């Protein structure tokens, strides 16, 4: 099952799906309307058409637990043939190496039971939770058949979050630069003192 790479994309497609199929009507009843059903709970249940739903799954995995190790081993054995399974998030390998603490993922899934459309997005960043739930709220408005509210700041703060993400390599580069600058400064200072002494 493919995942969207950005939450904006997921949000956009989910809202389109919800607008198109908020309550998906599977089979239409035969045109001559059947006699009004008796109000007993069984018929009521069968008559409700399936709705497009959004499931938010919050999963905590503990890398040090034996069950996780077993699953990892199982997954690892058939894996070697395909070099990079596309469904795995790219950062997963790096995380597994250095974290023994439990880590969590948040998976958002929009599913239309009749057409079978399934839209997914997965993240492990705590910073995204607020924005995603805000997005769920906006999708909730579609579900409730309310008119859409004006575009708020959600779009504006999205690029900012991406900016912080891309800026992470920069500090490493800065770390390297000042170190060399420091050594240069020290050597230069030393040289200056020597010259002065020589002149005197």
């Amino acid at each position: 099952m493919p995942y969207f790479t950005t939450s904006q994309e997921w949000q956009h497609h989910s809202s389109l799906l919800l607008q198109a199929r908020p309550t998906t009507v599977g089979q239409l009843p035969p045109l001559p309307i059947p006699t009004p059903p008796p109000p007993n709970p069984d018929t009521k249940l069968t008559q409700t058409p399936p709705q497009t739903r959004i499931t938010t799954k919050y999963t905590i995995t503990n890398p040090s637990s034996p069950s996780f190790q077993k699953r990892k081993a199982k997954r690892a054995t058939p894996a070697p043939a395909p070099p990079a399974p596309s469904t795995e998030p790219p950062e997963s390998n790096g995380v597994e190496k250095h974290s023994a603490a439990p880590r969590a993922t948040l998976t958002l899934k929009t599913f239309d039971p009749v057409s079978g459309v399934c839209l997914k997005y997965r993240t492990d960043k705590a910073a995204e939770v607020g924005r995603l739930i805000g997005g769920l709220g906006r999708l909730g408005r579609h579900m409730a058949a309310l008119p859409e509210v004006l575009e708020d700041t959600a779009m504006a703060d999205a690029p900012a979050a991406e900016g912080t993400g891309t800026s992470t390599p920069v500090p490493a580069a800065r770390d390297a630069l000042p170190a060399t600058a420091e050594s240069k400064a020290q050597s230069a200072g030393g040289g200056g003192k020597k010259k002065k002494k020589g002149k005197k």
Partner: protein
Amino acid sequence: MARAHLSSDEFFDRLSVLLEAGQQKSHGSIYLTQKRLSYELDAASSLSTDKVADDPTWDLHPPQPMPVIIRATDGKDKKRRAEKVRFSTVVQPDQLAAFYARYAEVCKGGMQALKKRDRSKRKKDKAKKRKLGGEDKKG
């Protein structure tokens, strides 16, 4: 799903308990589902069937806004249904905004195992820079 829906206050209380429990167990999943609640709770389901018969796309423009149902479970399977935690709440259209504002707060507070934004590197970097600047001026 024969249980009664909770009020939103109760729902948030139980949701935070559920998230907290997952945090302490340090494995497992919590499922939150939302969808339109398209039939009346009491009766009068004949209304919706009439609509379906008249117009296949009646759901695109319902006469009035509809409530949204939000469910939460801990994802226990059938075998362990007895100990399964599940509860739900119905949000009326006019309360959606307030509900989701609180929902976001509860989720942000409860989902602590997600990766925090890493600010430590940036701070260290700034401190280093300041030190360096001071040394340069002295030298």
